[in-house]
């Protein structure tokens, strides 16, 4: 089943940073759709909950050098 989760990243410092995180998240297993908004820092992830591990999302964002917060 498909599920949606959100994060908020307040420390994006450039629009490219947001699109890099978007790409990285879309490469995580089971992720169907990702939208990262630079302007508001909102991250929306639609994923297949039988495949994806939601904990991996926050980890991926951290790996890119940003701080995810629950939205």
């Amino acid at each position, binding site marked *: 089943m498909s599920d949606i989760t959100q994060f908020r990243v307040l420390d*994006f*410092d*450039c*629009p490219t940073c947001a*699109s*890099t995180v978007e790409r990285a998240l879309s490469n995580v297993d089971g992720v169907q759709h990702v939208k990262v*908004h630079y302007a508001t*820092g*909102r991250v929306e992830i639609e994923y297949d909950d039988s495949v994806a591990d939601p904990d991996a999302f926050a980890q991926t964002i951290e790996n890119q050098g940003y701080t995810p917060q629950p939205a």
Partner: protein
Amino acid sequence: MTKQSITQYYQKHRKAIVTATSGLLYGSGWSLGYLTSFEMASAAILVLATVVGGYDIAKTAYHEVTNRTLGIKTLVTLAAIGAIVIGEYWEAAAVVFLFSLGSYLEGRTMRKTRTALQELLEMTPDTATVRRDGTLQEVSARDVEEGEVVVVKPGGKIPVDGTVVDGESAVNQAPVTGESAPVHKADSDEVYAGTVNQEGALEIRTTGAGSDTTLERIIRRVEEAQEAQSPTESLIDRFAKYYTPAVIALAIGAYAVTQNAILSLTLLVIGCPGALVIGPPVSIVSAIGNAARSGVLMKGGEHLERAGKIDLVAFDKTGTLTKGETTVSDIEGFGVAAADVLSLAATAEKKSEHHLADAIVDMARERQTAATDGGATVAQADDTDVGRRSVPDPDDFDVVAGKGVIAHADGQEVVVGNRALLDDRDVDVPDRVADYVREREGRGETVVHVVRDGDIIGAIAMRDELREAAPGVVAALQDAGIETVMLTGDNDRTAAAVAEEVGIDEYRAELLPEDKQSVIEGYQADGHVVAMVGDGINDAPSLATADVGIAMGAAGTDTAIETADMALMADDLERIPYAVKLSKATRWNVLENVGIAVLTVTVLLAGVLTSYVTLASGMLVHEASVLLVILNGMRLLRY
């Protein structure tokens, strides 16, 4: 401090600590090299400064490359490595330090913009006092069920959307509607989560809690609006896609021609479209956030940019410039008692939903109740029922749009309507009637004729008071160089009287609903950028036709928000000059930011090609320009 709290502190302030360390190392490395002859030591410290400051940047750069995006961090990493390779340690450390400092400050300021809306959400209390199982219980506000009764003490914040079932109070609704004056709330009035109960205790039956409240819905919409790209933003994004690779090609080309590594590295750094891509979104997010806090919902950057070009504002008259509370001011019978004119008209109009019909029916109920109950207290208890019964139903009834109604009752044909309807039906209008109508209309009132079996038996004059703020709002728009127009279905004389009272530039009278649309199209054809202000429901088509549709009193009505480009949460006309001026300021702000960005890159490019600008000074100016556009955009948060 325990080890754990040190780690936590470090994690929280990592960017600041890294930047400061890199800065200190850079400073000492530079002074060592400048003041002494320990060049090896100086170089070592500068390399260390580069590594400390550059580690995180390089890590992100690595991710950029593996995700096949090309960002400034990749370019900065390339520049720093390149500078070290050719032995320019000072340049390498300077670039890394200045970039970290810049992005730390950018991140911090952007955080302010991003959290501007969160403050609104924090207005909602976390817990609610609910009447459950006969006792009062303190529960999480998210767990309150629809239909449950919540008790809010004086001074307390209202945790849910709902209807007042007991108590009376003044509620400050600023977080939702932007109105600073408290609103009186009593039985069966609607209240919103996040608003403040200022005076008495209220008991509220919940209609929405948790994420299903008006405030939460507004904030979700505002965020969507902030995220929607404006035409300028998408133009710049498309441009940036080609721009960055072009800069890299230019840098490589420059190296091939000049063999000057520093020159091409500098090109890489200053060529980043930083200020250009950051500027417009910051302006727009700040403006939309500011508007939201003042009770104006802007649908997105596109709408905002269009609103910045408005040069004509058209107002619907009824309910927009006026209070929309039409009351009967005079009844005249022509050979028939005024009371009979009223009751006949009320019967004919009973099934109509027009606001004039409501005024007539309400008046008839009031009069008849007063007449029948004769002051008896028994009837008082249920006077609305008596009132309702006292206006009989018509046998049949037809609405003639924009003109009136035709009904049958007790074997009589009753027509209630304007002159146009009478002319359609060849009803003769005696001078006496025409004089009465002219006199009343000259005062800004609306008059309907009451016709029984082809003869005029009376006329009813109705008045809809102007909103107190209307003349000031029109004047404020005129001061801002904007033309103002009033659109109304009323006849010319009434419209002229009202137009004069408000001080509006122009009026268009006797318009059917679809005429309003063509009037707006006419202004557009004349080259005007037109905003239309209306209630968002009856005026939905003209709001949609206008370049910018502005709906009033939209809190709670989703239809109005759907059709409009801008929605005023409260029925507060005074927000209109504010919204129009904010849009204009935003448009300028976006242009300023684009100007700053283009100017910076041009100057830097010229500087690099003439060797005036080095890697470090180029980075300094580049980061300064990014900060400048962010700070400029954030001015709109305080507009």
